[in-house]
């Protein structure tokens, strides 16, 4: 650890990978999660039961297993397998985005449930269209209800990125492990701990601010 400064580049490299997986997952899975909610609530039985099944499978199996499945399992699917062969990093992002979309979908569904049906009727009386009701009345309230759960899930996401080294993507924890093995001291683990804490500090601050914005 005495030559820590010469290793900053190494830890930065790992932090960058951790942050990219985190950011890409969040950017894809939040909108995708909303689509999952719409599908779960769909009046079309086919769509809603399809969404139910997907959410059941994704929430019912470990994310680690899903990572292995996307990277090692997808290419083995007959016929379409060759179009589903992705690089390590892309596979990691796909598995994370799908997994988190399902959790976010359930969180949004909970948010929608908390809103009184009377608001739809009231909006109708006021002459708002279905779309206007959704975007101007329902969704803002839903977000307020959902924010604490989303914040919780986002913090979990930061830590879950540590799983990707199973398919050979080196992130911060993996680099620390490498340093532990090279130097024979467990101290580099503290660097990884610090990185996760710093990222989650910012996540916490951002969500606190968002919650304040949505308070009435």
């Amino acid at each position, binding site marked *: 650890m005495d030559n820590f400064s*010469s290793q900053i580049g190494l830890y930065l490299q*790992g932090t960058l990978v951790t942050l990219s997986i985190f950011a890409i997952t969040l950017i894809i899975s939040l909108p995708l999660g909303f689509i999952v909610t*719409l599908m779960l609530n769909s009046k079309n039985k086919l769509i809603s039961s399809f969404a139910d099944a997907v959410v059941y499978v994704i929430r019912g199996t470990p994310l680690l297993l899903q990572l292995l499945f996307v990277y090692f399992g997808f*290419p083995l699917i007959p016929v379409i397998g060759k179009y589903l*062969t992705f690089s390590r990093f892309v596979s990691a992002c796909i598995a994370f985005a799908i997994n988190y979309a399902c959790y976010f979908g359930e969180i949004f569904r909970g948010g929608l449930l908390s809103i009184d049906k009377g608001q739809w009727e009231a909006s109708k009386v006021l002459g708002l269209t279905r779309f206007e009701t959704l975007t101007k009345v329902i969704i803002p309230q839903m977000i307020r209800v959902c924010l604490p759960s989303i914040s919780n899930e986002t913090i979990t996401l930061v830590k879950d990125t540590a799983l990707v080294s*199973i398919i*050979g993507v080196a992130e911060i924890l993996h680099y620390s492990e490498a340093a532990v093995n090279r*130097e*024979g001291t467990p101290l580099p683990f503290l660097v990884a701990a610090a990185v996760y804490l710093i990222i989650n500090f910012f996540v916490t601050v951002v969500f606190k601010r968002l919650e304040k914005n949505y308070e009435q």
Partner: protein
Amino acid sequence: MKKLLLFFTVLVMGIFLFTACGGTSDSGETTANPDNDDQTFVIGVDDQFPPLGYRDESGEIVGFDIDLAKIAAEKLGMDLRVQQIDWAAKELELEQGNIDAIWNGLTITPEREEVMLFTDPYLENEQVVVVPKDSEIKTVSDLALKKVGLQSGSSAEDALTGNPISDQVQEIVTYDDNVAALQDLSIGRTDAVVVDLVVANWYIKENNSDYVVLEEALAPEKYGVAVAKDNTELQEKLNAVLDEIKSDGSGEEASIQWFGSNILYSES
């Protein structure tokens, strides 16, 4: 149906977005695997295995095996890429062609020969017992009623369980990697560690530890390079290349640089 369509559109768009920033630029080769192509010799390593393959302070994977693989790739006329893999998934990586070879202090064992194809051995190694300098353990038989640490799934495990003393030890403690086992020895949770000789020597030198290696070894063994079970073509090519490396002095040079002496394996 519209929503379903939207779902898939977003999914496909997302996938394209990923691929665009994935950074694995296939140079127009008609290959199904984005992590490997014909021009690249991809070796899989567990990058936690000094001094054979590990990450240096700049994050680069280096080591004796990496140096040998570099020479081999040059002789094959291919570009070398060193890919870090999870050791538990090494057979899958090889079988699916994500990597061309496992080159990482891989001990040739009969069980492994059933699932992969080995080249001729290139390095000699032994499984040895490491103890603190002041330990009362002087021979393998002194391990009776002691706690012994080792890496799980390693050939150290096979070496110990294959020795009659394994019935007499108090407990076998397994770790994810060798260094963790060696560290726990210094804390005192175990009395001895069974590990590859090359790793033991490197660890003791690097950390100036107060450890000694027992003269009596558990099992002699050989390291080889593994390729996929059906890839006899690459196996033959690598055998030819390894012969060259052993005879033209390039291997000897690397061995002296990493181990201080020539420990390359030769048939004679």
